[in-house]
């Protein structure tokens, strides 16, 4: 299996604060890769580095064999132009903790926007595809609703449909259920489970240990900007080796 995401010594700092202190990991194609850890451990920051919403300060980060945000010629790195970065991002879907739906567009328009604007898909085609995707996340009847008229769980499912509309090869989930009422979490996780079954490569930052155990193929525990422990989710969650992992899991499980 080829690596969909490959990180080699990734460092990231905001001013004087070092958030990532050398991350090495590999996400295989088609797997569900879960990132867990206490808040401030750098897991969300790492996720945002994968689609270059954050620039890394050191190390190398590859998506599908391609360097993210830079071009290497000989031993020199060149920053990519904005348009080239945008090109790279097309294939990487992202789902945010706070949904970030476009509030001035209906659910269907949210899903149609990027295919029309970025890929030049015709409006009719985009509408048809949006209908399919909204149906897939169980919201076919909400196509004409504005985000403010939807519950948090429904908004997040529209956000997933919106990301899928670009036919990404990789999906990033940044704590997709953390902003939801507990009773709405299940619907979103169901959609993610379906997506995992369809073979999508997913990197998921989450606090849902149940989801990680059931659906995850690999799991990484991060703390203080480094990977503390990694392996099969069932093993790491039931039998953590490192004491920091044990301390964290004893609090959340």
């Amino acid at each position, binding site marked *: 299996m080829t690596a969909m995401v490959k990180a080699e010594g990734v460092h990231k700092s905001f001013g004087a604060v070092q958030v990532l202190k050398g991350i090495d990991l590999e996400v295989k194609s088609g797997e569900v890769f879960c990132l867990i850890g206490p808040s401030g451990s750098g897991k969300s920051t790492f996720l945002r580095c994968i689609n270059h919403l954050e620039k890394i300060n050191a190390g190398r980060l590859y998506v599908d064999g391609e360097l993210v945000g830079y071009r290497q010629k000989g031993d020199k790195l060149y920053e990519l132009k*904005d348009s080239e970065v945008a090109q790279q*991002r097309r294939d990487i879907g992202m789902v945010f903790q706070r949904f970030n739906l476009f509030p001035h567009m209906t659910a269907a328009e949210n899903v149609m926007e990027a295919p029309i604007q970025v890929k030049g898909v015709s409006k009719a085609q985009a509408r048809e595809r949006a209908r399919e995707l909204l149906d897939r996340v169980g919201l076919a009847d909400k196509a004409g609703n504005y985000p403010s008229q939807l519950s948090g769980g429904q908004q997040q499912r529209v956000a997933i449909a919106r990301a899928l509309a670009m036919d990404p090869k990789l999906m990033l989930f940044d704590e997709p259920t953390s902003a939801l009422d507990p009773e709405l979490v299940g619907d979103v996780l169901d959609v993610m489970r379906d997506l995992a079954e369809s073979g999508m490569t997913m990197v998921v930052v989450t606090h849902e240990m149940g989801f990680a155990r059931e659906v995850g193929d690999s799991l990484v525990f991060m703390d203080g900007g480094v990977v503390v422990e990694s392996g099969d989710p069932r093993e790491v969650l039931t039998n953590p080796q490192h004491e920091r992992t044990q301390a964290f899991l004893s609090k959340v499980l």
Partner: protein
Amino acid sequence: MTDKFDKEPADATPSAAVSKEGGALPPEAIKAIPVRHYGRWVSGVVVLALVALLVNAFATAEKIQWNAVGEYVFDSTVLAGAGRTLLISVLAMVMGVVLGVVLAVMRLSKNPVTSWVAWVYIWFFRGTPVYVQLLLWFNLALIFPVLNLGPIYKDEMVDVMTPFMAALLGLGLNEAAYMAEICRAGLMAVDEGQTEASHALGMSHAKTLRRIVIPQAMRVIVPPTGNEFINMLKTSSLVYAVTYNELLRATSTIGSTSYAVMEMLFVACIWYLVMTSVFSVFQYYLERRYARGSLRQLPPTPWQKIKANMLGLGSERGK
């Protein structure tokens, strides 16, 4: 998945209905004697009395020739003046909005030179009175007798800086400084998550700005811009000073020759009120349009309110 979510309330209603049919009595409505607000009645009467005195003073003042007001409201000179007020206000506002957007983008740009130049512009034009700025433009010929733009254009400054040009530049350039700050505030009010989501979908900076950020910023920008325009309609009376023949100047000229000074000022007031009122209505509809998506239910238009009231009355009568 949705079904689960949607069904719960649907299940809940029938069970509630059953219990109702099961004989539970409807709760008895409270019939209590409301608190009497005597203070409200007293203050209402006092205010009404004061208003009546004021109206009476104006209505019965012997020195006011009310017929002169009626006579001159539709006078052609007055109408032409009102037209010029409208013209200079619209043109200055257009200039202000266009230049304001440019200045706002300059201020927010990462280039320190453009951002600094925009800052200085706003500092100067907001920091000096518009009246002074109008006089500066009007008297520009004193220091630059000839306008020389190299090979493109050359003319006597007095020919270029007509009252109209001085008024337009004075009002428009001043307005741009205010509009720049309004636009900047609007652009910054849009949540950063919106830009991130758009970028994450692979949309370019330009498309993100045009399709995602600006439509949302408009909601913040439109209301103060409407206020600015209404302000502009009134501020335009200052161009009296640069001898542009707008509404105030037109009415004052008639006033000083016909000795109906106050009456002509009333005429000016009437036209200013007409113009500002019309634009207030227009602004209401514009704001309503840009509220799409951010309000669950758009506020009704006045016409819809009237219709709803009529229907409400009709159905009550029907009972």
